[in-house]
C-alpha cells in the first residue's frame, strides 16, 4: 500500500525526498498518512481536491484487490 502511494505521489511533487508515509493498520482498514513538503501540498491536493481524489481512487483499486479499505490522509 505504502509503495503504491509513494509511486503515485513522487512524480507529482517538486521535493520527493520530503515525502513520508505513515501506515496504520486497523483490521480491515489501512490508514496512510501522507506528508509532503509544505510547498508541495497543492500538488497532491489540487484544485478542489481533484488530485487528492484521483490518488484515493487508485489506492482504492489496490485495496479492493486485497480485500481491504484504505484511507489516505494528507497531513500538513
Amino acid at each position: 500500500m505504502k509503495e503504491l502511494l509513494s509511486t503515485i505521489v513522487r512524480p507529482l511533487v517538486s521535493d520527493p525526498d520530503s515525502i513520508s508515509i505513515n501506515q496504520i493498520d486497523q483490521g480491515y482498514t489501512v490508514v496512510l498518512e501522507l506528508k509532503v513538503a509544505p510547498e508541495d501540498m497543492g500538488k497532491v491536493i489540487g484544485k478542489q481536491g481533484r488530485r487528492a481524489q484521483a490518488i484515493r481512487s487508485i489506492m482504492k483499486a489496490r485495496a479492493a484487490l486485497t480485500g481491504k479499505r484504505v484511507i489516505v490522509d494528507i497531513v500538513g
Partner: protein
Amino acid sequence: MADFVEKSAKTVQQAINDALDALGVTEDEAVIEVLDEGESGGILGIGRKPARVRVSHAEVEADDSNDMLPASDYADDDSDYSEDMNADVSDDEQADESEAEPVYYGDDEYNDEPESQAESAAMDYVTDILRGIGIHGRISSYHQDGNLHIDVSGHDCGAAIGRHGETLDAIQYLTSLVANKHSEEHLRVVVDIGGYRRRREQTLINIAERAASKVNRSGKQYRLDPMNPAERRIIHSALQGFEGITTFSEGVDPDRYVVVAPAERD
C-alpha cells in the same frame, strides 16, 4: 480466471450476497465490482433500478500484512508483463480493431522527438501504478491527432478501470499531469485499459441514438444520466447529424447531463 458472476438485486449488498453465494466464496476471497448502484426510486418505487455487481475470485491473497513490493510481485512472471517505452503503433494499425498483437517498433525513431520525454515519463508512470495495483498487462503508446495514447491490454484489468471508469480516469488525469511536466505545449493524454474507452464510446453512441429515436417518437425532450465532459462530448457529436434533434447540457459537474430535445423548426 474468467470465473465471475453478475447479479442484480434491490440493493448493492443483496446483489453482492447473491453473487458470493452463487460463486461459493466469502467476501474475503472475492473481488467485488459494483457495476451499478441502482436507484431506490420514489415512494412508490417509480424509477427504481436494480443494483448490479460483478464478483470474481480474488487472485491476490487477502493477507497484505507485509507491504508488497512490486518487484517481488512480478519476479516470477516477468514474461507476462512486457513493455516497450518507445513502442509506437502506426496510424493505420488503429483502423484494425481486432485483438491482434500490437505492433512494436524499434526505439530509434522516437528517442529524438521532443515529446518522447513526456511519453516515456507517462509510460513509466502508468506501468508503475498498474504494477502497484497488481495488474498484469501489456502497454503500448502512440500519438494520434496530437494526443498521446497509452493502451494497456490484459486480463483482469477491471480493478484498474473501476466503477464507471473512475480509476481509469484517475490514472489518466495524474498521468497527464506527469507527462505535461516534460512537455512545453499542453499534451492531451488518453489512457485506455482493456479497451474500456472504446467499448464505452460505442455504448454511449447507442444510448444517444436510442434517446434520439425516443425523442423523435414522443416529441418530448429526454434527459440522460449525468456524465463527465468527455462522455457528454461523445453524445453531442453522435447526435450532431441527427435529423430533428438538438442536444445541450444542463446542471453542474459531476451531475451535469445531456438533454436530447426536438430541434426547433422554423
